[in-house]
């Protein structure tokens, strides 16, 4: 017999837990191998010792004792202990390590998309979208669309504007605020400005074609 049986199999053999065909093989080897036979004997002695120790346990722990219930109770007690510990001990937050690279990529994309929007979408369209989103969010219709089905002229403190056929004309006189403005039902809007230094009055207007 050139090779010994591994110790695990010998332990199972000693306890009678090996399958039949494997047990037969080990039994054959143990008969011819003094070293393994000695180990099997030692394992059987240890097993007998353990059984005797179990018989010496306190009263109430009979052989029919429900070990599963005991394990469950112990687990529950451990959890209660951990929860109580968390109440009195400040919890240490784990901060996930932050990598600058994904953040840089995300910031770059935001800048790129924002820039592309700013460069390619007219401001009026942005305003219209913003107004529509606001109306959806608030559930009210605070401002009319710039153009529904007909030309629209408007006058406000921002000046005069005409929206027609996707085109637009806006006159704001250099950002000055008009002293008065009005619209007419014939399709025009006008705003009046006064030069603060000279007093010269300028009136700007837009007209539906």
């Amino acid at each position, binding site marked *: 017999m050139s090779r010994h049986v591994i110790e695990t199999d010998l332990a199972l053999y000693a306890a009678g837990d090996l399958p039949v065909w494997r047990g037969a093989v080990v039994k054959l080897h143990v008969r011819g191998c003094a070293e393994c036979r000695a180990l099997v004997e030692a394992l059987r002695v240890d097993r007998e010792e353990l059984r005797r120790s179990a018989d010496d346990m306190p009263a109430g722990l009979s052989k029919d004792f429900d070990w599963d219930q005991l394990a469950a109770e112990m687990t529950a007690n451990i959890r209660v202990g951990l929860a109580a510990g968390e109440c009195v001990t400040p919890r240490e937050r784990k901060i996930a390590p932050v990598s600058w690279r994904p953040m840089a990529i995300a910031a770059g994309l935001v800048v790129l998309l924002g820039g592309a929007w700013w460069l390619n979408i007219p401001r009026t369209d942005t305003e219209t979208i913003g107004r529509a989103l606001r109306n959806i969010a608030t559930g009210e219709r605070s401002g009319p669309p710039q153009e529904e089905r007909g030309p629209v002229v408007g006058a406000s403190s921002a000046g005069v504007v005409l929206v027609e056929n996707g085109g637009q*004309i806006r006159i704001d006189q250099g950002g000055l605020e008009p002293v008065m403005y009005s619209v007419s039902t014939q399709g025009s809007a006008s705003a009046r400005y006064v030069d603060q230094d000279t007093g010269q009055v300028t009136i700007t207007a837009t007209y539906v074609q």
Partner: protein
Amino acid sequence: MSNKLCIAFAVASGISLHAQALNHKIDFPKDSPVSLLSEDFGNSNATARGANLIDVNAALSLRNSGQKRIRSMTLMVSTQDAAGKGSVSVPTLDAGPGETFSVHISTRLVRPLTAGNPVVEVTLDGVLFDDLSFYGPDLLHSQRNMIRWELEAQRDRKYFKTLLAAGGAEGLRKEMLSSLARQGDSSQRGVQMVRGRATNIDAEPESQFAFLDIPESPVEASNGRARIGASLAGAPQFEVRNRSPRAVRHLEIAWIVKDQQGREFLAASMPADMTLAPNQSGPVAQDAALRFDRPISIQSMSGFVSSVEFADGSQWIPSRGALDQTRLRQLVAPSPEEQRLSQIYTKKGIQVLVEELKKF
């Protein structure tokens, strides 16, 4: 990585944004009484951003090259394919022959992207002289407005001169302070006018107009009504009667709106081209709707005849007395000339204002 993003962004910017100097054309007729001395389109440009954005920032220096004094002028600003037309008017000029004056234009036009550089054209629409004669193609019907501004200017200068003669500089000063107070108190609202069947105004309930009768008015308005919705009023219609001995070809009704808090403001004007013989009546219906930029609950509406143009081209405007006798003084905006004079008083004092009035 960040370097690559910067490069990509710069390339995208270079491709997408190419602001270019604006091509412009100033076209005055050869016999124009106004000639161009110099022009500065320095800050003007055209940018392709989903559409052609054309920013016109121009300062024009002009000279009265005619023989009459110029009282007002209107320039038309346009570009091909852009929506509508724009205009810039200077209604309070007093430029004698050979004298110079300046006009500033600040306009943004948006038009669909097309091949080729956009060209902005500035043309003369009209010039009004001190004798109320007019020069220009009048494509924007600016002659009517310019005559009205001049009539208002004459009316108000006469009023202030009368005050000066009766009460001296102190009397004029009191009136200027009163005018400035009215200008400060006037309330306005941003408003849009939609023309045509572009709204659901037909489904809204109809409400009556209360017309304020100005006894001296050559035209009487009555039986006014319009539809009122949430922050919306439209489809106005009314009847007018010419109670003067002269034929009328155009009139304007001022449209006043009162909100639930009792605040009144001038919402719009309703011009109407119509021929009315003496004592003749006729209906006026406008296919348009007013929309306010802030929510408003309209309590009532009223109106008054604000100007009338007769068949011979002359006009009627309410006198200051007529405006003072009603509550219209608080609603009607001061004339451009009154605003010019009150600005002179504010900036330069009563003596300069007195000297200014003596020029006319």
